[in-house]
């Protein structure tokens, strides 16, 4: 049913036609938010009335074909392994041998799972080797492949030596190497996502590496609480406190700096995942700070909560990126505003 009414002053309540919206209306008005830009519910807008148009609401960008399990899983396990190795090395040299040993095993396991996720994403195992055809600093994926190629064997050696007791000197060197490279394993993935045209990721390119490193540290602290003996878990409890604080700060600053695309971190699945991550991180940290020193089960539970928090953060960032690529609003609007701010709008463009 049409809701339009004919009045003396013309048509009122006329429904919009099916035509594609256009940007610079002939009388100098820009078309309002159209197509998929409209959202249900009366949510508060983060920006002044959005002015943009799109081609039938179709995305401007291509949505990455990456599977959440592969890529978000890769990010999580990579971070866990990297920060875990660093904590293992530090633990080994500060009188926490059992924790160091356990973390070496968990890091080897995590980096193996991470590689499995990567290979599953690529489709065939030999494709990982193709990644080492060239070394390109302009490609975070190429840089990351080389980091993994250096880190993986070091983490493997460290774990093997710890398990067998053989080649203790080589084991120590490998432990140090893995611990030194570990942070880059955790950090490069932030650049990996940020160096794309995906608005939620690219607009947060200053914050993503910090968030990923903090999240990796949360995971490593969680793993240390889960697998390390209670008597040695003081460093892990402190790291949990430090890393959770850093993660919460980095998350907030990411959402703010992503501008309009920051919405995608707060809505829908990414929003729910981030809330879950925050609650789990706070719960895990509280458990680590208050109970983990006294009770082994409490330490393990806190550790598990921290691990889950880190994973939830990775999935939230991944899904927020997809959501921001899917809606042309997040691509067009910031670019429109940028052009207007630069005063270099296209000829004939309304300002």
């Amino acid at each position: 049913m049409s809701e339009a009414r004919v009045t003396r002053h013309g048509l009122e309540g006329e429904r919009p036609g099916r035509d594609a919206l256009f940007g610079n209306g002939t009388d100098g008005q820009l078309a309002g938010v159209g197509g998929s830009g409209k959202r249900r519910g009366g949510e508060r807008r983060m920006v002044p009335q959005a002015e943009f148009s799109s081609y039938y609401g179709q995305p401007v960008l291509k949505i990455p074909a990456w599977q959440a399990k592969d890529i978000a899983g890769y990010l999580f396990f990579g971070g866990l392994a990297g920060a875990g190795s660093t904590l293992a090395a530090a633990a080994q040299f500060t009188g926490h041998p059992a924790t160091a040993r356990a973390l070496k095993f968990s890091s080897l396991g995590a980096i193996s799972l991470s590689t499995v996720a990567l290979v599953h994403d690529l489709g065939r195992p030999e494709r990982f080797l193709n990644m080492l055809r060239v070394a390109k600093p302009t490609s975070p994926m190429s840089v990351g492949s080389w980091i993994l190629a250096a880190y993986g064997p070091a983490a493997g050696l460290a774990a093997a030596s710890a398990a067998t007791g053989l080649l203790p000197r080589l084991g120590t060197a490998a432990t140090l190497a893995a611990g030194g490279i570990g942070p880059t394993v955790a950090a490069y993935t932030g650049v990996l996502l940020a160096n794309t045209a995906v608005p939620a990721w690219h607009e947060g390119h200053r914050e993503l590496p910090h968030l990923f490193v903090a999240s990796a540290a949360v995971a490593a602290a969680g793993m240390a609480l889960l697998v390390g003996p209670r008597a040695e878990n003081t460093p892990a409890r402190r790291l949990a406190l430090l890393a959770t604080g850093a993660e919460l700060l980095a998350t907030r600053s990411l959402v703010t700096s992503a501008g309009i695309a920051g919405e995608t971190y707060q809505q829908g699945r990414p929003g729910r995942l981030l809330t879950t991550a925050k609650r789990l991180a706070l719960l895990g940290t509280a458990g680590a700070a208050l109970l983990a020193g006294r009770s082994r089960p409490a330490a393990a539970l806190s550790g598990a909560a921290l691990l889950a928090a880190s994973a939830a953060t990775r999935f939230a960032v991944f899904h927020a990126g997809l959501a921001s690529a899917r809606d042309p609003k997040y691509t067009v609007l910031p670019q429109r505003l940028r052009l207007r701010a630069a005063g270099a709008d296209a000829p004939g463009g309304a300002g």
Partner: protein
Amino acid sequence: MPELPGTERVGFFTDTSVCIGCKACEVACKEWNLVPEDGLELTGMSYDNTGSLGASTWRHVAFIEQNKPLGGQQAHRTHEAHENMDVLALAAQGSATPVAEAAVTPTTPGAPTPDGRTELRWLMASDVCKHCTHAACLDVCPTGALFRTEFGTVVVQQDVCNGCGYCVPACPYGVIEQREGDGRAWKCTLCYDRLGAGQEPACAKACPTDSIQFGPLDELRERAAQRVARLQETGVPDARLYGADPDDGVGGGGAFFLLLDEPEVYGLPPDPQVTTRDLPRMWRHAGLAALMLLGGVAAVCTRTHRRSR
């Protein structure tokens, strides 16, 4: 057909003001490049049933229906002639008015303008890979499968492509895509094989209106500047070039366009940027973050060390 341009940079100038939406470019591209079919679906988006550029659509014709006067018309409709008309009284006459006597029936076309045109306008534009001067897809490819040819175009070597899909979200135009069931990334090659043989790309060859023009980029830019100036003179003030400026966010496109409305109307980003422009800053932040992790872990362990001994 221009002569083989040798190592000169070549490209496309797509003048959408003369596009008739025949899709000959789409078909010629598929035929020549043996691009598989990508589904036979009706999108409901005017006559556009291919949707967007993708792994199996290297030329895509957009159809935009607008209630917007064509060039040469006044922007504002005048309602003076109807000022004294009592529409409510007219409505009361109801449908009893014989069709022949009715001033307006549902099928009466809108008032034509002095030059005989009605209000609906139809924009048609054939989109293609932009072959950017600073190509993000090429920058981020971890295997070197994407490379720049001697013609200044950007091409994927399909036997090297690893299927990582990193080029897909890197492209600010949403051009390159992984093919389903294949995993590798595909896009327009600007008919690299034809260029080598001194031929123009299939789409340009097939275009019946010369909406798609192929040639040395400098020459095309000159031609485009003249064309847009002429259109603006003759009353198409919205005509503008897109992707022709070598100072834009991607260093200018090897394929650029003459548009009759804002880029986003055609599904194009208004101000695309090559993502690697910010990469040095990202690496610095990553380095800083990594150092902070080392420092943080050392701090939580060292103090324990002192206290526990």
